[in-house]
Protein backbone atom coordinates (compact mmCIF):
# COMPACT_ATOMS: atom_id res chain seq x y z
CA UNK A 1 0.00 0.00 0.00
CA UNK A 2 2.83 2.34 0.82
CA UNK A 3 4.20 1.84 -2.69
CA UNK A 4 1.17 3.61 -4.07
CA UNK A 5 2.22 7.15 -3.28
CA UNK A 6 0.86 9.81 -5.61
CA UNK A 7 4.24 10.16 -7.27
CA UNK A 8 4.37 6.44 -7.99
CA UNK A 9 0.92 6.62 -9.48
CA UNK A 10 2.00 9.53 -11.60
CA UNK A 11 5.14 7.90 -12.94
CA UNK A 12 3.70 4.49 -13.78
CA UNK A 13 1.51 5.46 -16.75
CA UNK A 14 4.68 6.28 -18.67
CA UNK A 15 5.77 2.70 -18.17
CA UNK A 16 2.58 1.28 -19.68
CA UNK A 17 2.56 3.65 -22.60
CA UNK A 18 6.03 2.52 -23.58
CA UNK A 19 4.78 -1.06 -23.69
CA UNK A 20 1.47 -0.80 -25.53
CA UNK A 21 0.58 -4.48 -25.32
CA UNK A 22 0.58 -4.64 -21.55
CA UNK A 23 -2.14 -2.11 -20.97
CA UNK A 24 -4.74 -4.27 -22.64
CA UNK A 25 -3.68 -7.41 -20.82
CA UNK A 26 -3.76 -5.50 -17.54
CA UNK A 27 -7.36 -4.54 -18.16
CA UNK A 28 -8.50 -8.12 -18.55
CA UNK A 29 -6.68 -9.01 -15.36
CA UNK A 30 -8.45 -6.19 -13.56
CA UNK A 31 -11.86 -7.71 -14.25
CA UNK A 32 -11.56 -11.33 -13.17
CA UNK A 33 -14.82 -13.07 -13.97
CA UNK A 34 -15.41 -14.49 -10.49
CA UNK A 35 -15.36 -11.01 -8.99
CA UNK A 36 -17.83 -9.85 -11.57
CA UNK A 37 -20.25 -12.66 -10.77
CA UNK A 38 -20.32 -11.63 -7.12
CA UNK A 39 -20.63 -7.94 -8.03
CA UNK A 40 -23.32 -8.75 -10.59
CA UNK A 41 -25.29 -10.76 -8.06
CA UNK A 42 -25.06 -7.98 -5.48
CA UNK A 43 -26.00 -5.35 -8.05
CA UNK A 44 -29.01 -7.37 -9.18
CA UNK A 45 -30.18 -7.94 -5.60
CA UNK A 46 -29.94 -4.22 -4.82
CA UNK A 47 -31.54 -3.26 -8.14
CA UNK A 48 -34.52 -5.49 -7.35
CA UNK A 49 -34.71 -4.09 -3.82
CA UNK A 50 -34.76 -0.52 -5.16
CA UNK A 51 -37.24 -1.35 -7.90
CA UNK A 52 -39.48 -3.35 -5.52
CA UNK A 53 -41.70 -0.41 -4.53
CA UNK A 54 -42.23 0.45 -8.21
CA UNK A 55 -42.90 -3.17 -9.19
CA UNK A 56 -45.21 -3.56 -6.18
CA UNK A 57 -47.09 -0.40 -7.19
CA UNK A 58 -47.61 -1.81 -10.68
CA UNK A 59 -48.67 -5.25 -9.40
CA UNK A 60 -51.06 -3.81 -6.79
CA UNK A 61 -52.69 -1.58 -9.40
CA UNK A 62 -53.81 -4.77 -11.17
CA UNK A 63 -55.29 -6.30 -8.01
CA UNK A 64 -58.80 -5.99 -6.66
CA UNK A 65 -59.14 -3.78 -3.56
CA UNK A 66 -59.59 -6.80 -1.28
CA UNK A 67 -56.50 -8.54 -2.67
CA UNK A 68 -54.48 -5.33 -2.42
CA UNK A 69 -55.09 -4.82 1.29
CA UNK A 70 -53.89 -8.12 2.74
CA UNK A 71 -51.18 -9.00 5.22
CA UNK A 72 -49.15 -11.05 4.22
CA UNK A 73 -49.25 -9.72 0.63
CA UNK A 74 -51.11 -11.75 -1.98
CA UNK A 75 -48.64 -11.82 -4.84
CA UNK A 76 -50.46 -14.52 -6.79
CA UNK A 77 -53.89 -12.87 -6.62
CA UNK A 78 -55.97 -12.59 -9.79
CA UNK A 79 -55.20 -9.65 -12.04
CA UNK A 80 -57.95 -7.20 -12.90
CA UNK A 81 -58.38 -3.78 -14.46
CA UNK A 82 -60.91 -2.69 -11.82
CA UNK A 83 -58.58 -0.15 -10.22
CA UNK A 84 -57.91 1.54 -13.56
CA UNK A 85 -61.63 1.63 -14.31
CA UNK A 86 -62.22 3.20 -10.92
CA UNK A 87 -59.44 5.72 -11.51
CA UNK A 88 -60.78 6.83 -14.86
CA UNK A 89 -64.05 7.67 -13.17
CA UNK A 90 -66.27 4.86 -14.39
CA UNK A 91 -67.31 4.11 -10.84
CA UNK A 92 -66.72 7.34 -8.93
CA UNK A 93 -67.67 9.95 -11.51
CA UNK A 94 -64.52 12.05 -10.92
CA UNK A 95 -62.59 12.26 -14.16
CA UNK A 96 -58.79 12.43 -14.07
CA UNK A 97 -58.70 13.72 -17.65
CA UNK A 98 -58.80 17.50 -16.96
CA UNK A 99 -55.73 17.38 -14.66
CA UNK A 100 -53.92 15.02 -17.03
CA UNK A 101 -54.63 17.36 -19.95
CA UNK A 102 -53.56 20.37 -17.85
CA UNK A 103 -50.28 18.64 -17.00
CA UNK A 104 -49.68 17.75 -20.65
CA UNK A 105 -50.47 21.31 -21.76
CA UNK A 106 -48.27 22.94 -19.12
CA UNK A 107 -45.38 20.52 -19.65
CA UNK A 108 -45.38 20.53 -23.45
CA UNK A 109 -45.95 24.26 -23.98
CA UNK A 110 -43.42 25.30 -21.34
CA UNK A 111 -40.89 22.92 -22.90
CA UNK A 112 -41.46 24.51 -26.31
CA UNK A 113 -41.03 27.99 -24.79
CA UNK A 114 -37.86 26.88 -23.03
CA UNK A 115 -36.40 25.61 -26.32
CA UNK A 116 -37.32 28.83 -28.13
CA UNK A 117 -35.51 30.91 -25.50
CA UNK A 118 -32.66 28.53 -24.67
CA UNK A 119 -31.41 27.57 -28.13
CA UNK A 120 -30.46 31.14 -29.19
CA UNK A 121 -29.03 31.80 -25.72
CA UNK A 122 -26.92 28.64 -25.85
CA UNK A 123 -25.76 29.67 -29.32
CA UNK A 124 -24.62 33.02 -27.95
CA UNK A 125 -22.78 31.22 -25.15
CA UNK A 126 -20.98 28.58 -27.19
CA UNK A 127 -20.69 28.99 -30.93
CA UNK A 128 -20.19 32.76 -31.04
CA UNK A 129 -19.61 33.41 -27.36
CA UNK A 130 -20.30 36.85 -25.97
CA UNK A 131 -17.69 38.45 -23.74
CA UNK A 132 -17.75 37.16 -20.15
CA UNK A 133 -19.90 34.23 -21.21
CA UNK A 134 -18.95 32.23 -18.11
CA UNK A 135 -20.39 34.97 -15.91
CA UNK A 136 -23.66 34.78 -17.80
CA UNK A 137 -23.68 31.01 -17.42
CA UNK A 138 -23.26 31.30 -13.67
CA UNK A 139 -26.00 33.88 -13.45
CA UNK A 140 -28.35 31.39 -15.10
CA UNK A 141 -27.22 28.70 -12.67
CA UNK A 142 -27.68 30.92 -9.63
CA UNK A 143 -31.35 31.52 -10.49
CA UNK A 144 -31.86 27.74 -10.37
CA UNK A 145 -30.39 27.60 -6.91
CA UNK A 146 -32.92 30.00 -5.44
CA UNK A 147 -35.67 28.01 -3.69
CA UNK A 148 -39.15 28.40 -5.17
CA UNK A 149 -40.55 29.27 -1.73
CA UNK A 150 -38.51 32.47 -1.76
CA UNK A 151 -40.43 33.87 -4.72
CA UNK A 152 -43.78 32.16 -4.49
CA UNK A 153 -45.66 34.74 -2.42
CA UNK A 154 -45.08 37.69 -4.80
CA UNK A 155 -45.95 35.40 -7.72
CA UNK A 156 -49.15 34.36 -5.97
CA UNK A 157 -50.05 37.98 -5.13
CA UNK A 158 -49.29 39.09 -8.68
CA UNK A 159 -51.40 36.31 -10.16
CA UNK A 160 -54.25 37.13 -7.79
CA UNK A 161 -54.09 40.84 -8.64
CA UNK A 162 -54.11 40.42 -12.41
CA UNK A 163 -56.56 37.52 -12.30
CA UNK A 164 -54.08 34.89 -13.46
CA UNK A 165 -54.75 32.56 -10.55
CA UNK A 166 -55.92 29.10 -11.64
CA UNK A 167 -54.77 29.94 -15.16
CA UNK A 168 -52.66 27.41 -17.02
CA UNK A 169 -50.79 30.13 -18.96
CA UNK A 170 -49.34 31.63 -15.82
CA UNK A 171 -48.19 28.17 -14.74
CA UNK A 172 -46.61 27.67 -18.17
CA UNK A 173 -44.56 30.87 -17.71
CA UNK A 174 -43.47 29.69 -14.25
CA UNK A 175 -42.38 26.30 -15.57
CA UNK A 176 -40.49 28.01 -18.38
CA UNK A 177 -38.48 30.06 -15.89
CA UNK A 178 -37.95 26.97 -13.74
CA UNK A 179 -36.42 24.96 -16.60
CA UNK A 180 -34.69 27.66 -18.63
CA UNK A 181 -31.40 27.72 -16.64
CA UNK A 182 -30.95 23.94 -16.86
CA UNK A 183 -31.81 23.97 -20.55
CA UNK A 184 -29.29 26.73 -21.30
CA UNK A 185 -26.55 24.84 -19.44
CA UNK A 186 -27.30 21.52 -21.13
CA UNK A 187 -27.74 23.01 -24.56
CA UNK A 188 -24.51 24.97 -24.32
CA UNK A 189 -22.58 21.78 -23.70
CA UNK A 190 -24.30 20.13 -26.68
CA UNK A 191 -23.67 23.06 -29.03
CA UNK A 192 -20.06 23.22 -27.85
CA UNK A 193 -19.65 19.76 -29.37
CA UNK A 194 -20.08 21.20 -32.88
CA UNK A 195 -16.54 21.22 -34.35
CA UNK A 196 -15.20 24.72 -35.00
CA UNK A 197 -13.59 23.54 -38.27
CA UNK A 198 -17.00 22.61 -39.65
CA UNK A 199 -18.35 26.07 -38.86
CA UNK A 200 -15.33 27.72 -40.47
CA UNK A 201 -15.63 25.53 -43.54
CA UNK A 202 -19.28 26.50 -43.90
CA UNK A 203 -18.37 30.17 -43.59
CA UNK A 204 -15.67 29.86 -46.27
CA UNK A 205 -18.15 28.13 -48.55
CA UNK A 206 -20.34 31.20 -48.15
CA UNK A 207 -23.18 29.55 -46.26
CA UNK A 208 -25.41 32.06 -44.47
CA UNK A 209 -26.37 31.78 -40.81
CA UNK A 210 -29.64 29.89 -41.35
CA UNK A 211 -28.01 27.39 -43.69
CA UNK A 212 -25.11 26.85 -41.28
CA UNK A 213 -27.51 26.27 -38.41
CA UNK A 214 -29.58 23.83 -40.43
CA UNK A 215 -26.82 21.85 -42.10
CA UNK A 216 -23.97 21.99 -39.60
CA UNK A 217 -25.23 22.77 -36.12
CA UNK A 218 -28.60 21.00 -36.05
CA UNK A 219 -27.41 17.48 -36.97
CA UNK A 220 -24.79 17.49 -34.18
CA UNK A 221 -26.96 19.19 -31.57
CA UNK A 222 -30.33 17.50 -32.30
CA UNK A 223 -30.01 14.47 -29.94
CA UNK A 224 -28.96 16.81 -27.13
CA UNK A 225 -31.85 19.16 -27.80
CA UNK A 226 -34.26 16.23 -27.71
CA UNK A 227 -32.85 15.06 -24.36
CA UNK A 228 -33.08 18.58 -22.96
CA UNK A 229 -36.71 18.76 -24.01
CA UNK A 230 -37.48 15.42 -22.31
CA UNK A 231 -35.84 16.54 -19.07
CA UNK A 232 -37.74 19.86 -19.06
CA UNK A 233 -40.92 17.88 -19.67
CA UNK A 234 -40.17 15.62 -16.67
CA UNK A 235 -39.51 18.54 -14.31
CA UNK A 236 -42.71 20.33 -15.33
CA UNK A 237 -44.79 17.17 -15.10
CA UNK A 238 -43.45 16.41 -11.59
CA UNK A 239 -43.82 19.91 -10.13
CA UNK A 240 -46.21 20.24 -7.19
CA UNK A 241 -45.63 23.37 -5.08
CA UNK A 242 -46.18 26.02 -7.79
CA UNK A 243 -49.14 24.14 -9.21
CA UNK A 244 -50.71 23.73 -5.79
CA UNK A 245 -50.39 27.42 -4.94
CA UNK A 246 -51.13 28.93 -8.36
CA UNK A 247 -53.85 26.61 -9.69
CA UNK A 248 -57.06 25.17 -8.36
CA UNK A 249 -60.16 23.65 -9.85
CA UNK A 250 -59.73 24.65 -13.48
CA UNK A 251 -55.99 24.50 -14.12
CA UNK A 252 -55.01 21.89 -11.51
CA UNK A 253 -52.31 19.50 -12.73
CA UNK A 254 -51.92 15.76 -12.24
CA UNK A 255 -49.71 16.03 -9.11
CA UNK A 256 -52.29 18.38 -7.57
CA UNK A 257 -54.98 15.83 -8.46
CA UNK A 258 -52.88 13.12 -6.76
CA UNK A 259 -52.77 15.10 -3.53
CA UNK A 260 -56.50 14.38 -3.31
CA UNK A 261 -55.41 10.80 -2.54
CA UNK A 262 -53.18 11.83 0.36
CA UNK A 263 -55.64 11.14 3.13
CA UNK A 264 -58.70 8.98 3.44
CA UNK A 265 -57.83 6.83 0.45
CA UNK A 266 -56.36 4.00 2.50
CA UNK A 267 -59.33 1.82 1.65
CA UNK A 268 -58.66 2.21 -2.06
CA UNK A 269 -55.08 1.02 -2.25
CA UNK A 270 -55.37 -0.48 -5.75
CA UNK A 271 -56.87 2.76 -7.04
CA UNK A 272 -54.09 4.83 -5.46
CA UNK A 273 -51.54 2.56 -7.16
CA UNK A 274 -53.34 2.79 -10.51
CA UNK A 275 -53.36 6.59 -10.23
CA UNK A 276 -49.66 6.63 -9.38
CA UNK A 277 -48.87 4.34 -12.33
CA UNK A 278 -50.89 6.36 -14.87
CA UNK A 279 -49.44 9.69 -13.75
CA UNK A 280 -45.86 8.35 -13.60
CA UNK A 281 -45.98 6.65 -17.01
CA UNK A 282 -45.08 9.73 -19.12
CA UNK A 283 -42.12 10.45 -16.83
CA UNK A 284 -40.94 6.83 -16.87
CA UNK A 285 -41.02 6.82 -20.69
CA UNK A 286 -39.34 10.22 -21.02
CA UNK A 287 -36.79 9.30 -18.36
CA UNK A 288 -35.78 5.99 -19.88
CA UNK A 289 -35.58 7.65 -23.30
CA UNK A 290 -33.28 10.38 -21.98
CA UNK A 291 -31.36 8.02 -19.63
CA UNK A 292 -27.90 8.78 -20.94
CA UNK A 293 -28.34 12.55 -20.93
CA UNK A 294 -30.27 12.58 -17.67
CA UNK A 295 -27.11 12.98 -15.56
CA UNK A 296 -25.88 15.81 -17.72
CA UNK A 297 -29.17 17.60 -17.29
CA UNK A 298 -29.49 17.02 -13.58
CA UNK A 299 -25.90 17.97 -12.88
CA UNK A 300 -26.46 21.18 -14.86
CA UNK A 301 -24.24 20.05 -17.70
CA UNK A 302 -21.18 19.81 -15.48
CA UNK A 303 -20.84 16.03 -15.86
CA UNK A 304 -20.89 14.35 -19.22
Amino acid at each position, binding site marked *: *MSTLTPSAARTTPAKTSSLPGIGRRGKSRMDPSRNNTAAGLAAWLLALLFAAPVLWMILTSFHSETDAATNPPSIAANLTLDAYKAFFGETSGVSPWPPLINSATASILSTVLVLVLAIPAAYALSIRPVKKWTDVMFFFL*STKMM*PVVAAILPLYLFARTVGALDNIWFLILMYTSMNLPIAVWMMRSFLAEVPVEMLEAAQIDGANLILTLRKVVAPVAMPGIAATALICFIFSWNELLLARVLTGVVAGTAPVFLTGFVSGQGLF*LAKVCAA*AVVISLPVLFAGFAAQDKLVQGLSLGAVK
Partner: protein
Amino acid sequence: MTTATARVSRPGHNAAKPSRNARSKERALAWARRAPLLPALVFLIIVTQLPFVVTLIISFLNWNSLSPNKTGFAGFENYITVLTDADLRQAIFTTILLTVSVVLASLVIGLGLALLLDKKFVGRGLARTLLIAPFLVVPVAAALIWKHALLNPTYGLINGVLTWMWSLFGSDTPPQLDLLSQAPMMAVIVSLVWQWTPFMMLILLAGLQSRPMDTVEAAQMDGATPWAIFRHLTLPHLRQYLELGGLLGAIYIVQNFDAVFTLTAGGLGTTNLPYAIYQTFYFANEYGLASAAGVVVVIGTIIVATFALRTVFSLFKKEAAR
Protein backbone atom coordinates in the same frame (compact mmCIF):
# COMPACT_ATOMS: atom_id res chain seq x y z
CA MET B 1 8.49 52.43 -42.63
CA THR B 2 5.85 53.21 -45.20
CA THR B 3 2.99 52.77 -42.73
CA ALA B 4 4.67 55.12 -40.28
CA THR B 5 5.05 57.89 -42.85
CA ALA B 6 1.46 57.37 -43.99
CA ARG B 7 0.23 57.78 -40.45
CA VAL B 8 2.29 60.91 -39.92
CA SER B 9 1.21 62.51 -43.18
CA ARG B 10 -2.48 62.11 -42.32
CA PRO B 11 -4.22 64.94 -40.47
CA GLY B 12 -5.54 64.06 -37.01
CA HIS B 13 -9.30 64.15 -37.62
CA ASN B 14 -8.96 61.95 -40.67
CA ALA B 15 -7.27 59.24 -38.63
CA ALA B 16 -9.97 59.35 -35.98
CA LYS B 17 -12.82 58.83 -38.42
CA PRO B 18 -12.16 55.26 -39.56
CA SER B 19 -11.36 54.17 -36.03
CA ARG B 20 -14.67 55.56 -34.78
CA ASN B 21 -16.38 53.71 -37.58
CA ALA B 22 -14.56 50.56 -36.62
CA ARG B 23 -15.57 51.04 -33.02
CA SER B 24 -19.25 51.44 -33.79
CA LYS B 25 -19.03 48.49 -36.13
CA GLU B 26 -17.45 46.49 -33.33
CA ARG B 27 -20.19 47.60 -30.98
CA ALA B 28 -22.86 46.58 -33.45
CA LEU B 29 -21.18 43.21 -33.80
CA ALA B 30 -21.10 42.78 -30.03
CA TRP B 31 -24.81 43.54 -29.87
CA ALA B 32 -25.46 41.10 -32.67
CA ARG B 33 -23.70 38.50 -30.57
CA ARG B 34 -25.64 39.43 -27.46
CA ALA B 35 -29.03 39.60 -29.18
CA PRO B 36 -29.82 35.85 -29.10
CA LEU B 37 -29.00 35.80 -25.40
CA LEU B 38 -31.19 38.69 -24.35
CA PRO B 39 -34.70 37.20 -24.47
CA ALA B 40 -33.74 34.38 -22.10
CA LEU B 41 -31.80 36.70 -19.81
CA VAL B 42 -34.51 39.36 -19.60
CA PHE B 43 -37.23 36.75 -19.08
CA LEU B 44 -35.34 35.11 -16.21
CA ILE B 45 -34.56 38.39 -14.48
CA ILE B 46 -38.21 39.42 -14.59
CA VAL B 47 -39.64 36.10 -13.49
CA THR B 48 -37.12 35.07 -10.82
CA GLN B 49 -35.18 38.10 -9.58
CA LEU B 50 -38.00 40.60 -9.40
CA PRO B 51 -40.27 38.40 -7.21
CA PHE B 52 -37.39 37.80 -4.82
CA VAL B 53 -36.84 41.55 -4.45
CA VAL B 54 -40.55 41.83 -3.60
CA THR B 55 -40.18 38.99 -1.06
CA LEU B 56 -37.31 40.90 0.49
CA ILE B 57 -39.49 44.02 0.79
CA ILE B 58 -42.48 42.12 2.22
CA SER B 59 -40.22 40.45 4.78
CA PHE B 60 -39.81 43.85 6.45
CA LEU B 61 -43.56 44.51 6.61
CA ASN B 62 -46.26 43.64 9.08
CA TRP B 63 -48.71 42.05 6.71
CA ASN B 64 -51.46 39.61 7.49
CA SER B 65 -54.03 39.64 4.72
CA LEU B 66 -56.80 38.83 7.24
CA SER B 67 -56.17 42.03 9.21
CA PRO B 68 -55.36 44.64 6.53
CA ASN B 69 -55.39 47.54 9.01
CA LYS B 70 -52.25 46.44 10.78
CA THR B 71 -50.04 46.62 7.71
CA GLY B 72 -46.89 48.65 8.22
CA PHE B 73 -43.13 48.65 8.47
CA ALA B 74 -41.92 45.95 10.85
CA GLY B 75 -38.15 46.30 10.76
CA PHE B 76 -36.46 43.05 11.69
CA GLU B 77 -39.44 41.85 13.72
CA ASN B 78 -40.33 39.07 11.27
CA TYR B 79 -36.76 37.82 11.23
CA ILE B 80 -36.63 37.79 15.01
CA THR B 81 -39.88 35.79 15.05
CA VAL B 82 -38.52 33.29 12.51
CA LEU B 83 -35.41 32.70 14.59
CA THR B 84 -37.13 32.62 18.00
CA ASP B 85 -40.55 31.04 17.35
CA ALA B 86 -40.33 27.44 18.58
CA ASP B 87 -42.16 25.97 15.57
CA LEU B 88 -40.17 27.86 12.98
CA ARG B 89 -36.90 27.11 14.72
CA GLN B 90 -37.90 23.46 14.77
CA ALA B 91 -38.57 23.76 11.01
CA ILE B 92 -35.06 25.11 10.45
CA PHE B 93 -33.61 22.23 12.46
CA THR B 94 -35.77 19.69 10.61
CA THR B 95 -34.67 21.07 7.25
CA ILE B 96 -31.00 20.71 8.18
CA LEU B 97 -31.45 17.19 9.61
CA LEU B 98 -33.49 16.05 6.61
CA THR B 99 -31.05 17.47 4.08
CA VAL B 100 -27.87 16.20 5.73
CA SER B 101 -29.15 12.69 6.44
CA VAL B 102 -30.75 12.16 3.03
CA VAL B 103 -27.72 13.49 1.14
CA LEU B 104 -25.19 11.46 3.13
CA ALA B 105 -27.17 8.21 3.04
CA SER B 106 -27.98 8.43 -0.66
CA LEU B 107 -24.36 9.36 -1.47
CA VAL B 108 -22.96 6.35 0.38
CA ILE B 109 -25.48 3.88 -1.06
CA GLY B 110 -25.18 5.52 -4.48
CA LEU B 111 -21.41 5.11 -4.38
CA GLY B 112 -21.75 1.40 -3.58
CA LEU B 113 -24.20 0.92 -6.43
CA ALA B 114 -22.04 2.89 -8.86
CA LEU B 115 -19.00 0.75 -7.99
CA LEU B 116 -21.03 -2.42 -8.62
CA LEU B 117 -22.50 -1.13 -11.88
CA ASP B 118 -19.07 -0.07 -13.09
CA LYS B 119 -18.17 -3.76 -13.46
CA LYS B 120 -19.36 -5.84 -16.38
CA PHE B 121 -21.98 -8.47 -15.59
CA VAL B 122 -24.94 -10.17 -17.20
CA GLY B 123 -27.91 -7.85 -17.65
CA ARG B 124 -26.09 -4.74 -16.46
CA GLY B 125 -28.20 -2.46 -18.65
CA LEU B 126 -31.43 -3.84 -17.25
CA ALA B 127 -30.17 -3.63 -13.65
CA ARG B 128 -29.24 0.02 -14.25
CA THR B 129 -32.67 0.72 -15.70
CA LEU B 130 -34.36 -0.87 -12.67
CA LEU B 131 -32.19 1.24 -10.38
CA ILE B 132 -33.14 4.48 -12.12
CA ALA B 133 -36.87 3.73 -11.76
CA PRO B 134 -37.27 5.23 -8.24
CA PHE B 135 -36.01 8.55 -9.57
CA LEU B 136 -38.53 8.52 -12.41
CA VAL B 137 -41.70 8.03 -10.40
CA VAL B 138 -43.54 11.35 -9.97
CA PRO B 139 -42.50 12.54 -6.47
CA VAL B 140 -46.07 12.87 -5.17
CA ALA B 141 -46.88 9.41 -6.53
CA ALA B 142 -43.76 7.98 -4.91
CA ALA B 143 -44.68 9.53 -1.57
CA LEU B 144 -48.24 8.17 -1.88
CA ILE B 145 -46.94 4.66 -2.58
CA TRP B 146 -44.67 4.84 0.47
CA LYS B 147 -47.51 6.07 2.62
CA HIS B 148 -50.22 3.64 1.54
CA ALA B 149 -48.64 0.63 -0.16
CA LEU B 150 -45.38 0.20 1.76
CA LEU B 151 -45.56 1.79 5.21
CA ASN B 152 -49.20 1.28 6.06
CA PRO B 153 -49.10 -0.58 9.40
CA THR B 154 -51.92 -3.04 8.63
CA TYR B 155 -51.50 -3.99 4.98
CA GLY B 156 -48.29 -2.27 3.77
CA LEU B 157 -45.72 -4.34 1.91
CA ILE B 158 -43.03 -3.96 4.58
CA ASN B 159 -45.15 -5.39 7.40
CA GLY B 160 -46.56 -7.91 4.93
CA VAL B 161 -43.10 -9.23 4.14
CA LEU B 162 -42.27 -9.38 7.86
CA THR B 163 -45.43 -11.43 8.48
CA TRP B 164 -44.59 -13.74 5.61
CA MET B 165 -40.97 -14.25 6.73
CA TRP B 166 -41.96 -14.99 10.32
CA SER B 167 -44.65 -17.42 9.14
CA LEU B 168 -41.92 -19.36 7.28
CA PHE B 169 -40.49 -20.17 10.69
CA GLY B 170 -43.89 -21.00 12.11
CA SER B 171 -44.36 -17.79 14.08
CA ASP B 172 -47.62 -15.88 14.04
CA THR B 173 -46.30 -12.93 16.07
CA PRO B 174 -44.11 -11.08 13.58
CA PRO B 175 -42.73 -7.64 14.48
CA GLN B 176 -44.90 -4.97 12.86
CA LEU B 177 -43.63 -1.45 12.21
CA ASP B 178 -45.60 1.78 12.25
CA LEU B 179 -43.00 4.19 10.97
CA LEU B 180 -45.51 6.86 9.91
CA SER B 181 -46.80 7.48 13.42
CA GLN B 182 -43.88 6.33 15.55
CA ALA B 183 -40.95 7.69 13.55
CA PRO B 184 -42.42 9.94 10.85
CA MET B 185 -39.11 11.69 10.25
CA MET B 186 -37.56 8.30 9.50
CA ALA B 187 -40.37 7.57 7.03
CA VAL B 188 -39.66 10.82 5.16
CA ILE B 189 -35.90 10.18 5.19
CA VAL B 190 -36.23 6.58 3.97
CA SER B 191 -38.52 7.50 1.09
CA LEU B 192 -36.27 10.39 0.03
CA VAL B 193 -33.11 8.28 0.25
CA TRP B 194 -34.85 5.70 -1.96
CA GLN B 195 -35.70 8.39 -4.48
CA TRP B 196 -32.34 10.20 -4.48
CA THR B 197 -29.90 7.28 -4.41
CA PRO B 198 -30.31 6.69 -8.18
CA PHE B 199 -29.40 10.33 -8.84
CA MET B 200 -26.17 9.99 -6.84
CA MET B 201 -25.47 6.65 -8.51
CA LEU B 202 -25.82 8.17 -12.00
CA ILE B 203 -23.45 11.06 -11.25
CA LEU B 204 -20.88 8.80 -9.57
CA LEU B 205 -21.15 6.25 -12.38
CA ALA B 206 -20.38 9.03 -14.87
CA GLY B 207 -17.40 9.90 -12.69
CA LEU B 208 -16.18 6.30 -12.54
CA GLN B 209 -16.44 5.90 -16.28
CA SER B 210 -14.39 9.02 -16.91
CA ARG B 211 -11.60 7.62 -14.74
CA PRO B 212 -8.32 7.21 -16.65
CA MET B 213 -7.78 3.45 -16.69
CA ASP B 214 -4.06 3.43 -17.47
CA THR B 215 -3.20 4.64 -13.96
CA VAL B 216 -5.35 1.90 -12.42
CA GLU B 217 -3.75 -0.74 -14.63
CA ALA B 218 -0.30 0.51 -13.75
CA ALA B 219 -1.12 0.38 -10.04
CA GLN B 220 -2.37 -3.17 -10.47
CA MET B 221 0.82 -4.23 -12.13
CA ASP B 222 2.69 -2.77 -9.21
CA GLY B 223 0.67 -5.12 -7.01
CA ALA B 224 -1.71 -2.64 -5.41
CA THR B 225 -4.70 -4.20 -3.64
CA PRO B 226 -8.23 -3.29 -4.79
CA TRP B 227 -8.72 -1.35 -1.55
CA ALA B 228 -5.54 0.64 -2.14
CA ILE B 229 -6.64 1.44 -5.67
CA PHE B 230 -10.04 2.56 -4.40
CA ARG B 231 -8.57 4.60 -1.57
CA HIS B 232 -5.75 6.30 -3.47
CA LEU B 233 -6.95 6.47 -7.08
CA THR B 234 -10.72 6.05 -7.38
CA LEU B 235 -11.78 8.12 -4.39
CA PRO B 236 -9.59 11.16 -5.20
CA HIS B 237 -10.86 11.07 -8.78
CA LEU B 238 -14.46 10.79 -7.57
CA ARG B 239 -14.09 13.64 -5.09
CA GLN B 240 -15.44 16.28 -7.42
CA TYR B 241 -18.34 14.06 -8.42
CA LEU B 242 -19.15 13.28 -4.78
CA GLU B 243 -19.11 17.00 -4.03
CA LEU B 244 -21.26 17.81 -7.05
CA GLY B 245 -23.80 15.08 -6.25
CA GLY B 246 -23.93 16.07 -2.60
CA LEU B 247 -24.34 19.76 -3.24
CA LEU B 248 -26.92 19.44 -6.01
CA GLY B 249 -28.78 16.89 -3.89
CA ALA B 250 -28.67 19.33 -0.97
CA ILE B 251 -30.05 22.15 -3.11
CA TYR B 252 -32.98 20.00 -4.24
CA ILE B 253 -33.68 18.40 -0.85
CA VAL B 254 -33.58 21.70 1.09
CA GLN B 255 -36.49 22.68 -1.15
CA ASN B 256 -38.41 19.43 -0.69
CA PHE B 257 -42.12 19.91 -0.34
CA ASP B 258 -43.76 16.88 -1.93
CA ALA B 259 -42.59 14.19 0.51
CA VAL B 260 -43.29 16.17 3.67
CA PHE B 261 -46.67 17.30 2.36
CA THR B 262 -47.76 13.81 1.29
CA LEU B 263 -46.29 11.49 3.89
CA THR B 264 -46.87 13.36 7.12
CA ALA B 265 -48.42 16.73 6.22
CA GLY B 266 -45.78 18.22 8.48
CA GLY B 267 -46.97 16.26 11.49
CA LEU B 268 -44.84 15.25 14.48
CA GLY B 269 -41.83 17.45 13.87
CA THR B 270 -41.46 16.79 10.15
CA THR B 271 -42.36 20.33 9.05
CA ASN B 272 -39.42 21.64 7.05
CA LEU B 273 -39.03 25.27 6.01
CA PRO B 274 -40.67 25.06 2.57
CA TYR B 275 -43.72 23.39 4.12
CA ALA B 276 -43.74 25.88 7.01
CA ILE B 277 -43.58 28.82 4.59
CA TYR B 278 -46.39 27.33 2.50
CA GLN B 279 -48.55 27.04 5.62
CA THR B 280 -47.59 30.47 6.95
CA PHE B 281 -48.75 32.34 3.88
CA TYR B 282 -51.34 29.97 2.42
CA PHE B 283 -53.30 29.15 5.57
CA ALA B 284 -52.17 31.63 8.23
CA ASN B 285 -51.95 34.52 5.72
CA GLU B 286 -48.89 35.87 7.52
CA TYR B 287 -47.24 37.35 4.45
CA GLY B 288 -44.46 39.25 6.23
CA LEU B 289 -43.45 36.27 8.34
CA ALA B 290 -43.53 33.84 5.40
CA SER B 291 -41.34 36.19 3.37
CA ALA B 292 -38.79 36.48 6.17
CA ALA B 293 -38.66 32.68 6.41
CA GLY B 294 -38.21 32.56 2.62
CA VAL B 295 -35.26 34.94 2.87
CA VAL B 296 -33.75 32.72 5.59
CA VAL B 297 -34.02 29.71 3.23
CA VAL B 298 -32.30 31.71 0.50
CA ILE B 299 -29.45 32.68 2.84
CA GLY B 300 -29.02 29.01 3.78
CA THR B 301 -29.13 27.94 0.16
CA ILE B 302 -26.60 30.61 -0.85
CA ILE B 303 -24.15 29.12 1.65
CA VAL B 304 -24.58 25.65 0.11
CA ALA B 305 -24.77 27.03 -3.42
CA THR B 306 -21.48 28.89 -3.09
CA PHE B 307 -19.75 25.56 -2.58
CA ALA B 308 -21.81 24.00 -5.36
CA LEU B 309 -20.86 26.78 -7.77
CA ARG B 310 -17.20 26.34 -6.94
CA THR B 311 -17.42 22.61 -7.65
CA VAL B 312 -19.34 23.09 -10.88
CA PHE B 313 -16.87 25.77 -11.83
CA SER B 314 -13.85 23.51 -11.37
CA LEU B 315 -15.45 20.77 -13.49
CA PHE B 316 -16.47 23.39 -15.98
CA LYS B 317 -12.97 24.84 -16.25
CA LYS B 318 -11.60 21.36 -16.86
CA GLU B 319 -14.03 20.98 -19.74
CA ALA B 320 -13.29 24.42 -21.16
CA ALA B 321 -9.56 23.68 -21.08
CA ARG B 322 -10.03 20.56 -23.19
